[in-house]
């Protein structure tokens, strides 16, 4: 028998839900993912299409933000050249934690068809990546699916960012470090 009776119908007018802080925080985080408006190449066209009315990212709580300070997802959409890599990393560093990264398309994943001196051979050389999105370019549905996968991933994570291994190092790349 509960010692204190809770009157669900009359206490502040709303029923009470019991959950863990992790789940509550992650529910909030995963349902308002704000990506950075950051297109690198042709994948950005698909990214823009995902944001526009036909595919409508907004219904998933995903709104593109123009400032890294307000964003928590970085979608690296396109070829990252070596000249630009410094600035991509700087934008990543400027984002506040918690932050996640989606590598969109073949070029961002591995350098793709640009097997040359001027292209970064996979953005995970400089930025830790959460989701690799195949395709050249991936269709908006693929990006939506990636966003949904990222939500699932966030819901599995701990709300305490110190426990998420990705965040506790100043520098880390996806290729060498395995997420526990």
């Amino acid at each position, binding site marked *: 028998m509960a010692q204190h009776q809770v009157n669900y119908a009359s206490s502040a007018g709303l029923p009470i839900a019991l959950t863990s802080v992790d789940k509550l925080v992650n529910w909030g985080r995963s349902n308002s993912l704000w990506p950075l408006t950051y297109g690198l190449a042709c994948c950005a066209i698909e990214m823009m299409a995902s944001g526009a009315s036909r595919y409508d990212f907004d219904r998933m709580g995903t709104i593109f933000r123009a400032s890294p300070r307000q964003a928590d997802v970085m979608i690296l959409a396109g070829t990252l050249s070596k*000249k630009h*890599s410094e600035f991509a*990393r700087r934008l990543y560093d400027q984002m506040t934690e918690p932050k996640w990264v989606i590598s969109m398309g073949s070029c961002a994943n591995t350098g793709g068809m640009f097997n040359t*001196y001027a292209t970064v051979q*996979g953005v995970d050389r400089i930025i830790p990546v959460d989701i690799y999105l195949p395709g050249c370019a991936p269709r908006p549905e693929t990006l939506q699916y990636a966003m949904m996968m990222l939500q699932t991933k966030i819901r599995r994570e701990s709300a305490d960012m110190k426990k998420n291994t990705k965040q506790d190092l100043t520098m880390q790349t996806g290729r060498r470090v395995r997420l526990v």
Partner: protein
Amino acid sequence: MRKYVPKDSVQKKSYYTDRFWVAPRVPRLAVEDEHFVAVVEAVGEDSKESYVEVGQLVIHIEATDNIKVIKKLKEECGYTQCSEQSAVDYLARDGEFELFYQLLNVTEAKRVRVVCRIKDGEPIESITPLYKSANFAERELFDMFGIKVNNHPFLKRILMPDDWEGHPLLKTYPLEGDEFASWYEVDKIFGKEYRDIIGPENRDPAHIDREDSKRFSRVGYEVPFGAEVAEAQSEQEIAYSKIFLTNYNSKKSKVLDERR
């Protein structure tokens, strides 16, 4: 079989060469067009050679005369636009760069290419006083070939980063980059000490690992995801094409020091 000699230049590195093959070339016609004849006359003795190729006049000049000749073309012959300017690396063949200026006459709808040659390390005079468009073209020339342009208002790299080493359009520059290029972003962002942590670039995306059943499907001989391929092989042996291929080079070939 001739002895293999390692070659440092890509131009010399063709795997197979037919000695009797002659590259088909666009015919070089004599200058007969009324306008072009006038242009060649205006250039006068500075023109070493002139001919018409695909409807365009080509004039070979000395590199030191470039500003003089192009000024004449602009002011006397009406070539008011410099649409393109670059170079070709013939260092391996001739020890020289071939520079070209592509000029356009809008009223006559005619094009002229002014070609000159400079040795490696020699500077060229800037034509930015004549054409504003030459500013970026000459910066690109410097960026890609390392050709110095005298009296240029702002000669610095245009495409590659300012702290880049090497000039990528030289034939001796590897397509996948030298050591500096392959570590550029790591050195710049994290510092050289992170090279070991991040590791070298993986530049073989076409690499196929037969034993890896997680990333590669073995069409016709499928195994479950993640299964040890070596174990599965004992049950299903793959018939490779060795039955169909005959090794015609089984005899050891002789290596000659000289040509016979």
